[in-house]
């Protein structure tokens, strides 16, 4: 069963990883900080997907918890970037 999943899911995982690499080019190029942040958002969503695929391929249900934590914190970095402190105009 698990071996079966490995064969079925490995190719999708590789392709997903490649799209994440592609998206990261935007983080390198910018130009603005917000553009780079978008690329990190994509990496976060893709990372959740990849973790779920890994959980099934490796037979490690605990990795679903990791994906859950990543999903919970997805908005934190964007908020840390954009929220304004009391002194900001």
């Amino acid at each position, binding site marked *: 069963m698990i*071996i079966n999943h*490995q*064969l079925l899911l*490995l*190719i999708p*995982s*590789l392709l997903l*990883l*490649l799209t994440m*690499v592609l998206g*990261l080019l935007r*983080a*390198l190029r*910018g130009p603005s*900080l917000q553009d*780079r*942040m978008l*690329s*990190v958002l994509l*990496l*976060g969503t893709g*990372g959740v997907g*990849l*973790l779920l695929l*890994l*959980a099934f391929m*490796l037979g*490690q249900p*605990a*990795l679903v*918890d*990791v994906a*859950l*934590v*990543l999903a*919970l*914190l997805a*908005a*934190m*970095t964007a*908020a*840390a*970037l954009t*929220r*304004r*402190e*009391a*002194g*900001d105009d």
Partner: protein
Amino acid sequence: MVVYLWNLLDLVLAGLVVALGWAAVASADLKRGIVLFIAFGLLLAIIWARLNAPDLALAEAAIGAGLSGALLLAALRDEPHTGDVIGFTRGPVAWATTVLSLVVAGTVAWALLHAHAAADPIRLADKVTVHLEHSGVSNPVTAVLLNYRAYDTLLELAVLLAAALGIMAVGPARPAYKPAGPLFGALVYWLVPLLIVIGGYLLWVGAHAPGGAFQAGALLAAAAVMLRLGGNPAAGLPGPVAQRWLLVCGVAVFISVGLLVTVGGHAFLQYPHGWSGMLILLIEIAATLAIATTLALAYVGGTTPASQGTLSEQQIKNHRASD
């Protein structure tokens, strides 16, 4: 076939993490460096998952991908926005440093390859497995942290306490955030309770599945960061006195348990038979609270506004004036 595909996945992941690390440290533009560092942390969490280390992946997902990015982004606000980039030291010093780094890396790689070739078949991993049933927990990582190498963990908590004291000593908190708008406010409203519940869940399952005090503490701290980002200046931390108790409770409970068992004729931190599970849970609860408070305080960046209404504010002002 499967093996080669795994190899390819490993090569892409390893190549990407090195490329991101390189790009993050090679950026003269700090904004770029920090965003790439956050991406680096995310990728590292995936790599821990790939290397069968779900305990680490949990901690990294909360800390590497969340907390440290938030910390660095907050620090970025203090950087002067002059537009000119300070960048790197150049010239012969740079060349010498590059050569030095290459030599160090080469030496480490050489040693690793030798260690890899001459690997001792008897590993600590086997000892961990053999004694696991006496450790009081069935998650090997928790067993190592709180039973076999409890001394290490005690000292680690002491290091965290020292860091927290240092942060409290150097100055007041960063300015608070403006109150959240309706959309982000709603997100904080739903997310914070969820983070706390899942933190509690991770603390509980840590005995037999990936999770434990460090992951739970990190999640509680993430809840505090979300609260602060939503406009709560104290990040949900209690008043100054309770805060200090929370900071020391990890080390205090750890040492008390260690000393209490010596009364029964055992060595320091050598749990009596049958009691390990309960004692470990007790220490872990205290450690979770201490870790969460330390990390939340680290994000706030100093004594929280709640604790500044007393004499200390005046003291800080006087101190500032005398500088």
